[in-house]
C-alpha cells in the first residue's frame, strides 16, 4: 500500500514534469492525496488525464464567471481547480457557477472540497446524474460511488449552499424536549445557592 505522503509527492512531481508550475504541482499533490484519503480513485484518474494531455489540448481558464463556456476545448480540471480555490470568495456570491464541459471532473472534487472549507459553506457539484456534496473538506458524500467516473462531463453546476439546518423546526424541538430530561428542576434553594453569580448584579 502506498502512503499518502508518497501519493502526494509523486503526484506533485508528475504534475511538474508535465508543465504545471511548482505552486500548481503542490496543489495537485495535496488534492490527489485528499481524493485517495476520501476513497476516490485519484491516482488512476490523474494518470488517465495526464495520458490524454499528450494527444489532446484543454482550456486553461483564467477568470471564472457565473457562466463559463469554452468554445472548443474541455476545461482542464486542474487549472480550473486552482483558479476556483483562488477566486472562490468572489464566486460564492453567484450562488451557482456553470461550466459547459470539463475533462475528468473527478479531479475537480478535491479542489471543490478545499473551496468548501475556505468559504465555510457546503458545495454541491452536479453533472449528468452525478451529485457530490462537499462538506467543509471533512467529507465528500455522493450518489456516484459505483462504477467508473466519466472522462468528461458537460453542463456542470457548482452550487454554493447556504448554511442552514437540514432538519425541520419540529424535528429539532422534539429532540430538544427529550434532551431536557437530563436537566434538574431548580428549587428556590438551588436558585440561591447553586449558581456562581448572585441573583442581583447591580455593581
Amino acid at each position: 500500500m502506498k502512503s499518502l505522503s508518497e501519493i502526494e509527492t509523486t503526484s506533485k512531481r508528475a504534475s511538474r514534469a508535465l508543465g504545471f508550475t511548482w505552486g500548481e504541482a503542490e496543489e495537485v499533490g495535496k488534492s490527489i492525496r485528499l481524493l485517495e484519503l476520501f476513497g476516490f480513485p485519484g491516482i488512476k484518474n490523474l494518470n488517465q488525464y495526464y495520458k490524454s494531455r499528450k494527444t489532446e489540448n484543454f482550456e486553461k481558464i483564467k477568470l471564472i464567471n457565473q457562466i463559463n463556456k469554452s468554445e472548443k476545448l474541455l476545461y482542464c480540471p486542474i487549472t480550473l481547480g486552482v483558479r476556483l480555490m483562488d477566486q472562490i470568495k468572489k464566486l460564492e456570491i453567484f450562488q451557482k457557477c456553470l461550466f459547459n464541459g470539463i475533462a475528468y471532473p473527478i479531479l475537480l472534487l478535491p479542489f471543490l472540497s478545499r473551496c468548501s472549507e475556505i468559504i465555510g459553506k457546503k458545495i454541491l457539484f452536479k453533472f449528468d446524474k452525478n451529485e457530490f456534496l462537499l462538506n467543509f473538506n471533512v467529507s465528500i458524500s455522493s450518489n456516484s460511488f459505483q462504477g467508473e467516473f466519466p472522462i468528461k462531463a458537460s453542463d456542470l453546476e457548482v452550487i454554493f449552499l447556504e448554511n442552514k439546518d437540514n432538519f425541520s423546526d419540529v424535528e429539532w424541538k422534539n429532540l430538544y424536549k427529550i434532551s431536557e430530561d437530563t436537566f434538574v428542576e431548580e428549587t428556590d434553594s438551588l436558585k440561591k445557592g447553586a449558581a456562581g453569580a448572585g441573583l442581583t448584579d447591580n455593581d
Partner: protein
Amino acid sequence: MNIKLRDPNVIMKLSRLGSFHQSRLSFLRSFLNEFKDWDYKRDLFDLDENGFGTAVYSFKKKDRVYSLICFANEIKDDERSDRVIATKWDAAFTLHDGVPHKKDIERLKNEVPKQEVGRLSYKELTLSRANKSVRVFNHVVESLSNGNQPNLDLLNKVGYLYRTTAVYGSGKFGLADRFRIKNREEINGPFRLEMMLVYLVRQFTFDQVNHVAKKRNPKSATELDLKICKNLGIGNSTGLGMAPFIVNHPTLLNNWILCRETALKKIREIKKVEIKDSNMFKECVRNSIKNITSWNTESAYQLVKIKDLLKDVRKFINFIEKDFNFKDDYPFNKIFFWLEKETCEECIEYIVSIMMEPFSEITQPLIKEMSSDEEKYFNIPTERTVEELKSILERKYPNILVINFEKKENNTKFWFISKNKEEPRLADRFEEQGSDLEQPLAIARDIKELYNQLLQSKNNLTIDKFLIENSHLRHVVRRAFIIEKFPYSEIQDNTISEKIVPIDMLRLKLSFFGALKFDPRSDKWLRICMFQGAPLPHELNNYDEQWVYKNHS
C-alpha cells in the same frame, strides 16, 4: 523587562544556523524525557555466532508498544558504504507499531534489509540502516573475547560502534503516514520515533558486540563495561538529503527556532537567578570544554570553527569566573550582550544552548510547541492585495531583496533530485546539465523575482488575479504569506550562491536532533554522534538530565 525575540534576519542566516548546538530542546533529549518511565525490554535476540540474525527491542506503557526489529546481515567489506548509493548494510532496522507477529518479522526480513527498494506497511513507523565502524567493532570484539576492556583512546576517538546512514519516517516507502499517529501524546514532538529507533539501535550494538565476543571465546569473554557503553553513541552519516527538508517545512522550521528564541528571551528576562541555577550553568560550561577538546575532525573548515569556539568559551569562562556577578539583575541578559560583543557566532549559539540547562520549567512547555500542523497554512489568502504582499516582502526579506541574481556568483548552484537514488543534489548550473529540472529550493531568487513582478503590478490588484499571470511564482507567494505569521520560517540566505556551505543546513537540523561532534567530510556531508553519554535503557527512570556535559570523553 521585556526582551525582544532575536531578529530573524540575523538568526536565519546560514552561517548562524550552521553554528547551532544541541540543547534541552533537542529531540533526542526530549525523547529520553518522554520515555523515561516506559518499560524497556529485549524481546528477541536470535543471532548466530557471528552476530547475524534478528533481534527485537521494545518500549511499552499501558497498551502502547513500540518494537524495534533489527536484522543483522553479513556483508563483504567492499560492499560497505555510507553513501546513499549503497545497497547493503551491516544491519537494517524498522520501528514497528505494537508487538510484531512472527509473520510480520518474516515479511519485514525480506523488505527492511532492502531499505529504499523494499516496501513497508502502515504498521511500521520508521526505517533505518547502519554500518559498523569495522575498526572499532573488531577491536572491541577482540578485546572482550580475551577478557579485556577495549582501548578507550580508540573508542573516544570514534565514539560509536555503528553509524546509521539514513533514518526514514512519515510515509516513506510505505511507512505509516504521520496523520495516523500524530494525536498520540507521547510523540507530541518532532522526530520522536526516529529518535527512539536510533536509541534502541545503540543498545543493539552493545548487545551484538557482547554476543559475538562471548561466542568467540565463551570461557574467557567479558562484557563491555556499562560505563564504556554509556560513553558510546550512534554515529550518523548525513548528506544533502536533509537539506531540502528545512526549506520544504517552513512552519515546522519556524516552530523549532521560535521555541529556541522564546527560551532565550525568557531566560534573559529572569531578574534574579538562583545560585543553584547559576552554578549549574557554570558547571555545564566548564564541563563542556571536554566536549570541545574531544571533538575529532579532519575538516579544515570545522577545525577553524572548533578552535575559535574553544578560544571563546575559555574567554567566557574567564569572564564569568572573574568579572561577572550572577547577583546582578538580569544576569543572563548581560551575558548575552557580552557574548554578542566578544565572541564568534559558534560560541554565542553554544552558550545560548547551555543557558537552557537550569531552566526545565522554561523549556519543557516549549517542547510541545515544536511540531506543526502544516496543512493549516497551505492555502493562499488570495483576497489580499499586491500592496500587502509587497509590504510583507519588504519587511520580511530585506536582505534577500538586495541580492543581484544577475550576477553569476549569486546564481551558481541548482538543487535537483537524482534519478538513480531520488535524493537531493546540488550542482553548478554553468558546468553541469540538469538545471532545467531545478527543484523549488532557490527561495531567495524566486522571492526577488516575485518582488520585481509585484513592483510592476497595480497595488490594489488582488492575489487571485496576480496569480493568473504569475502562476510560476505561486510557490513563493504561499511562502510569503506563511512568513508573515511565522517569522523564523525562512532561511534568510541565498541557497544557490557560489559560496553556499550546504552542511550549514544539515547542522541546523542535526543540532535540533541533538547531535554532537559535527565532523564535515566535505561541504556536502558530515558525520555526527548521537546519544553519546546518554543513559542506558535500564537507567532511564532516574538519570542526570545534564548528561551531555558530564559523561563522555
